[in-house]
């Protein structure tokens, strides 16, 4: 990792250079250094294996520069980047690339002006996590595996065992300077342990996961233990016939549906492309009134919190759905300005955009890439940070099972896709583990993994709510940077198809 002092110095020196360039009206320099360390587990009791398959890391760093060039009486914008070189020379090269790829984008209304100071104070991250060594990384992986194996051993289970998953550490540093007067910098690190345990002969699959801001408090062995316990409890699952069911969606399915269907539809660029399932829904009920959803990238104790966005603006909270009503969108500076200046936006939003400026707060202008948010190779897009689902009139988890009476607790789904594009709202996903049949208000038996597919519409799911718990379990989705803090949500009359009979 390149030090923060170097990133800050080069961002400042680069800005001095830009000020000497007469054809440049404005510019923004973004510099980042990123590392992803990962220890991947693969243990199989019945097939020779390494236990820890991949202790590894990827390191990248570079520069991305957005430049507004003078051209006659008009202006044109260009983006250039340089990979693997953090120097003023790298900035000069990036500017030349920007110069060779200028466009006249009528929807570009200028680089952002400085925002209020950030809510987060510097050095909110864990220095130990930022400086973890090779042996410590390997140790975390074996601790996660041992957590699972100890638990299985205690239950005298040693045959047909699979333990997979990983311990992952994200390290990010960035500095941003712009001719608009922004000088922003940030460094962050967090770790996660995500473990799956199977007792394959019993068709039993369990998950466990932990997310931590501090190396000292990360407990991969607990994720391993939780995964093993869940697998033990889900042995010899039963099948259910196709039909309409009452479901309790656990934190992972709630997060998966949010991450794949709901949050993309609340993203301003998707609404602008007329492909959101919430087209023309601003100010209207889009879910049960007990559901509220917000994005908050500025809370110290949450892993995806950062001081600044990748546009140099302070992070903050964006209300998305409040008591069932759509009240805001995930946005960056570019799309905020585009929507506020586009007369046709009213038809997509469903309201006069000038009167609801606060619905388009530019809190989510990040540059995503491989589970991270600070990728110098591209311009800012719109990325959720920490997404929190709140419940009013929350119910205790045990009471929720009683209220449902007869139905299914769904603990883990995958392959969640909108069937016919986001707009239609139809989706499908497959239940792959951690799930139980509820009978007479009690957990009666495990549900056989891979025996049920959910196929319904997201609007049904958001509105046919029985009850919600108050828990906020953090979930990271495979391949996505955001962390979703999910409750359990019980819904009724959801279509399930029995598969694989």
């Amino acid at each position, binding site marked *: 990792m390149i030090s923060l002092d170097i990133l800050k110095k080069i961002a400042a020196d680069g800005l001095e250079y830009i000020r000497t360039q007469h054809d440049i009206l404005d510019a923004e320099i973004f510099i980042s250094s990123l590392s992803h360390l990962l220890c991947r587990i693969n243990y199989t009791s*019945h097939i020779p294996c390494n236990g820890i398959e991949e202790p590894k890391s990827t*390191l990248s760093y570079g520069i991305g520069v957005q430049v507004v060039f003078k051209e006659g009486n008009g202006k044109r914008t260009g983006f250039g980047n340089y990979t693997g070189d953090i120097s003023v020379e790298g900035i000069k090269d990036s500017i030349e690339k920007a110069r060779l790829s200028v466009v006249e984008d009528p929807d570009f209304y200028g680089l952002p002006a400085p925002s209020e100071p950030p809510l987060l104070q510097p050095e909110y991250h864990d220095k130990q996590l930022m400086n973890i060594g090779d042996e410590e990384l390997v140790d975390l992986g074996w601790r996660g595996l041992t957590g699972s194996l100890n638990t299985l051993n205690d239950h005298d289970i040693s045959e047909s065992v699979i333990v997979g998953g990983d311990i992952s550490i994200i390290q990010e540093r960035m500095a941003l300077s712009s001719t608009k007067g922004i000088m922003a910098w940030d460094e962050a690190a967090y770790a996660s342990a995500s473990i799956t345990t199977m007792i394959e002969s019993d068709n039993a699959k369990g998950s466990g996961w932990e997310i931590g801001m501090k190396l000292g408090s990360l407990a991969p062995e607990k994720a391993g233990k939780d995964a093993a316990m869940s697998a033990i409890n889900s042995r010899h699952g039963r099948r259910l016939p196709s039909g309409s069911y009452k479901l309790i969606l656990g934190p992972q399915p709630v997060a998966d549906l949010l991450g794949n269907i709901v949050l993309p539809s609340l993203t301003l660029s998707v609404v602008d492309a*007329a492909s959101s399932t919430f087209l023309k829904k601003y100010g209207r009920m889009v879910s049960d009134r007990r559901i509220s959803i917000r994005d908050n990238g500025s809370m110290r104790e949450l892993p995806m919190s950062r001081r600044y966005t990748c546009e140099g603006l302070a992070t903050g909270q964006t209300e998305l759905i409040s008591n069932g009503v759509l009240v805001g969108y995930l946005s960056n500076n570019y799309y905020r300005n585009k929507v506020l200046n586009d007369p046709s936006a009213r038809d997509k939003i469903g309201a006069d955009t000038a009167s609801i400026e606060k619905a388009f707060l530019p809190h989510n202008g990040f540059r995503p890439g491989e589970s991270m948010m600070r990728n110098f190779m591209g311009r800012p897009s719109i990325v959720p940070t920490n997404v929190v689902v709140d419940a009013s009139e929350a119910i205790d988890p045990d009471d929720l099972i009683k209220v449902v009476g007869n139905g299914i607790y769904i603990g883990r789904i995958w392959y969640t896709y909108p069937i016919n594009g986001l707009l239609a709202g139809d989706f499908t996903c497959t239940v792959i583990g951690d799930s139980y049949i509820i009978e007479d208000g009690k957990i009666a038996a495990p549900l056989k993994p891979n025996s049920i597919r959910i196929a319904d519409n997201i609007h049904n799911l958001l509105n046919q709510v029985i009850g919600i718990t108050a828990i906020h379990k953090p979930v990271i989705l495979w391949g996505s940077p955001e962390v979703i803090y999910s409750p359990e949500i019980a819904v009724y009359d959801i279509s399930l198809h029995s598969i694989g009979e």
Partner: protein
Amino acid sequence: MLDVVSNIKNLVEESFNASARSLQGCHYADIRIDVSDMRWASAEDGKPKGAGRDECGSFGIRVIAGNGKKAPGYYGRIFSLKDLNNINSLIKEGLVHAHNRAFANSIKKERLTSTFERFGKSLWGTELSPTDVNRDTVPAVCKTDPRTISPQDILLLAEDTSKRVKGLSGIQFNDITVYTQSMGELFASTDGALIDQYFTYTQGNVYVVAAGKEGHQELYEYIGDQRGWEVISEGVNVQGVNLLDFSKRVAEDALALSDAKPFRSTEKEVVVVTDPYFNTLLSHEIIGHPMEADRVLKYETAYAGRSWLFRNFNENYLGKQVASPLITTYSDPSLPGYGHYVYDHEGTKGKKVMHIERGILKEFMNSRQTASLLGVAPNGSYTATDASFVPLIRMSTTVFAPGTSDPKMIIGDISDGYYLWGMHTPSISESRENFTISAIKTYKIHRGEIKELYRGGGVSADSMSFLMSVDAVGNDFKIYPIANCGKGQPMQTKRLGNGGPTLRGRARVSGSSGK
């Protein structure tokens, strides 16, 4: 800039091997280096949105080390062309990290083996199956080198195409993104392999939203091939169409679908005919993925899933019938398109891997390590998206083999059924034993003729039941690109090829929720 690879290869080999051999308990090491030049542009609703160019390099190192049970360790990073004077020092630094990790891994493996009497039995010392030690250079195939195309050239084409799509009545939104890329790769190992390979990739993405009588319809499709700018400008690609004609076709389909009624699911199995474009996703999801030996051996249990074809060494379908005798499937890196290569990323020459031959399960795609576990020869299927990532077992071009039937006759023989055209979205069980794959267009077939168009239809079936039900295989074999197959942690998005001919079988046709 791709000359960089050929210029540094001998120096890197010498320095890397000398450094690796000096490390304590190092049994094997390899290095992969790639250097890439990519140019791109995009336009939206006829307006220019962006353009750019990036050159960068990356490398990845694997070390297998240990004084007891051997274990692997890895390291990956990017570098700039300005780092070339210093490349050996960067590589040495990476080698030390990879070795530290491998060595620590080996010590922990020994410790766990002694802690758990029963669990420790399956912890092996890492072995790689022997492979030929290849030393070779493989040039790229292209007519118009991507490095001769400027971002402004690309922008002009994207903007013009986007304007023309916008001009079609009923189109609400469109986005056209085009990129063209040159890439050089180097592989060197302590076994003595030294291979440099060169590639070109060019792709055009088309996203449209149309409005019609039945509401909005969005479509996202792409053309792409492992060639130069001719992919976009002249239609020299496996799909045989240029960007402009392709974009118009996508827009016209979106318009037709926006006027079509949503499909309502069938209660029972019906006769389904699926076209080569639909079978591209079918071959990807239910043939290619479960044939990857890392899934077979459970490496992907926590992520991309296992394979229904292999429970363990005693319970599996190898040598058994899993499909109709009309079905033959294979992966073949010698086929054209995104899946083409000569050597994989551990230096093994890519071979045609026969998965299902006349209905009988034969062979999985593998790596040197998984080949060693399965007791077979490596078949060159171990590739990474870029050199900084650890390779995974990946499809090259995985297809259904062509049959002998005329596709018109396949449809003409049916009194009632459905014809599903084009790949849309998949939903798959974790071991790929069951699937729902939606099509772009679903047509009713009545008395041997294609009738009404519906949107949102898809095939739902158990994989083996569907494969066994196939009673006609067309002679219209076609390959399509898959631009974004995700696998691994962190997820690697990979380009590869899939395809096949028209197939006829039995399945439920799923549709909209109907609520």
